[in-house]
C-alpha cells in the first residue's frame, strides 16, 4: 500500500525562480536564501520518494477569473511550465502520476470534498520554485512524478485553514488505500508573511511566522481556528497562502518529527519559511519488506 512518509513546506517566491534561472544563486543576497536549502536537497536525495503531491496556488496562470476552482487536482500525465509574462521558466515539464491522482480524486470526492479534476494544466512558479529548492537542479528531468493540487487563494475567500487540514486528512486516507507500494512526500507551498500588493506591501511579521511554524509542527489544530481576516492582517494580504500548509500537515500523522527548519527575511518581498516533517511511522510503510503485498488483488 502507498504511504505518505513526509511533508515539506516552503515559500514559493517568483524572484527565487528568477535567481535560479539567471544563475544568481551565488550572489550574497541569494546565497543567504539558497544555503538554507542545502540540507533539504540532501534529505530529498536520500529520501527518494516515488511521488510528490505538490500543494500550491496558481497565480492567475492556469485559472483566470473566468473559472476559479477551490481545490483542483492535476490528473494529467504532464504539466508544462506556464509563461507568466517573461516566457516559461526553463525547467522540465512536470510529469504527473495519473493513476494515483485519479485514485485520490475519487476517494476524496466520495469523502465529500468537492474537488475539481484537471486533465490539462500549465503550472507556474508556485509549484516549480519549491521543486527547485528541495529537489535541486533537475538537470533535464525532475527526479519523480508530481501531482499538482492547486488551491484558490487569489479570489476571496480561499478555503478555510480547517477545510485545508481536513482535505489533508482525506488525502492521507486516499493514499493509504492505493494498492501499490509507493512512498509519497507532500509539499505545502506559499507564504510565509508577505504582502506584495498595495501601500502595505513589504509587510513582514516574523513573530507570527515563527509561532505559525511551531504550531504547524506541534499543534496544527490551533491553526485550524485562524480566520482569513486575521491571517491577512498578521501575515499580509498574500500571506493567506499559508492556508495551503495545513493541507500538507493534515496529510501527516498527528505526531511528526521536525527534521529541519529554515527561516529567513527577505527573499524579494517575502519571509521564507521551510520545514521538513517526517511521520514517526514512516518506517512501517512504503517499500519496507514487512508490509503485506496487497497490490493487484482482483477477481479472476
Amino acid at each position: 500500500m502507498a504511504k505518505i512518509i513526509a511533508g515539506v513546506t516552503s515559500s514559493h517566491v517568483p524572484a527565487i525562480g528568477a535567481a535560479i534561472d539567471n544563475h544568481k544563486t551565488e550572489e550574497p543576497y541569494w546565497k543567504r536564501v539558497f544555503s538554507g536549502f542545502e540540507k533539504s536537497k540532501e534529505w530529498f536525495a536520500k529520501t527518494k520518494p516515488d511521488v510528490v503531491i505538490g500543494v500550491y496556488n496558481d497565480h492567475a496562470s492556469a485559472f483566470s477569473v473566468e473559472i476559479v476552482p477551490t481545490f483542483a487536482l492535476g490528473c494529467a500525465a504532464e504539466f508544462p511550465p506556464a509563461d507568466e509574462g517573461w516566457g516559461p521558466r526553463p525547467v522540465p515539464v512536470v510529469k504527473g502520476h495519473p493513476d494515483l491522482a485519479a485514485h485520490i480524486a475519487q476517494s476524496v470526492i466520495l469523502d465529500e470534498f468537492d474537488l475539481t479534476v484537471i486533465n490539462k494544466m500549465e503550472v507556474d512558479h508556485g509549484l516549480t520554485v519549491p521543486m527547485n529548492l528541495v529537489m535541486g537542479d533537475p538537470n533535464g528531468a525532475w527526479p519523480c512524478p508530481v501531482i499538482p493540487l492547486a488551491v484558490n487563494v487569489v479570489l476571496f475567500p480561499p478555503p478555510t485553514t480547517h477545510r485545508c487540514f481536513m482535505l489533508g486528512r482525506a488525502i492521507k486516507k486516499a493514499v493509504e488505500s492505493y494498492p501499490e507500494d509507493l512512498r509519497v512526500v507532500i509539499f505545502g507551498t506559499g507564504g510565509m508573511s508577505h504582502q506584495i500588493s498595495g501601500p502595505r506591501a513589504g509587510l513582514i511579521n516574523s513573530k507570527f511566522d515563527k509561532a505559525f511554524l511551531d504550531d504547524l509542527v506541534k499543534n496544527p489544530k490551533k491553526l485550524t481556528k485562524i480566520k482569513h481576516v486575521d491571517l491577512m492582517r498578521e501575515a499580509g494580504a498574500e500571506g493567506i497562502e499559508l492556508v495551503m500548509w495545513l493541507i500538507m500537515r493534515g496529510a501527516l500523522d498527528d505526531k511528526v518529527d521536525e527534521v529541519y527548519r529554515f527561516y529567513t527575511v527577505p527573499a524579494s518581498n517575502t519571509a521564507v519559511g521551510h520545514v521538513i516533517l517526517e511521520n514517526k511511522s514512516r518506517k512501517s510503510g512504503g517499500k519496507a519488506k514487512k508490509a503485506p503485498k496487497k497490490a493487484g488483488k482482483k477477481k479472476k
Partner: protein
Amino acid sequence: MPRVEKEYDDIPGTFVFDQERSRRGYGINMFCMSLMKAENRKAFKDNEAEYLKKFPLTPEQTEAILKRDYNRMLELGGNIYFTAKLGATDGHSFQHLAAVMTGSTQEGYAKMMLGGGRPIEGNRSKSGKHERKSKPAAKAKGRKKAGSKRG
C-alpha cells in the same frame, strides 16, 4: 446593491480581491492574462492604446494601465497576480512593483526589506482596534506605516 462593509476593509493599505472587485476589474485582469503569450506582449508594446481596445475597460482603467499606476489598477478591480504580468511584460520584478505601490524608490524599498520588512506594529488596522499592547511601532528609517501616501 451598495457595498456591504467587510471586516477586511479595516486592514490598511490592502485591497482584498473579492468578487465585487473581480467583477469591476474583469477587463484589467483579462488584459493581463493575455500577456501570457509572447505575440500578445509584442502587440501590446507596439501600440498600447490600440491593444487595450480589445478589452472591456473603462477610461479610468485604460489610463491606469497606460500610466502603470499599479495601486489605481488594484482600486479599479485589478489583482496583483494578474497585474504582475504587465510588470513582467515591462521587464520589472515583483519587488519593483511593490516599491511603486508603496511610493518608494526600489532602492529604499529593498533596504526596508533587508531591514526586516515593514513592521506589523501600527499596520494591523485602520481603526487601530486590532493593535496589540506591545511596544509601539519601530521608527527605523525606511520602515514606514502603510498608506502614508495613498489608500
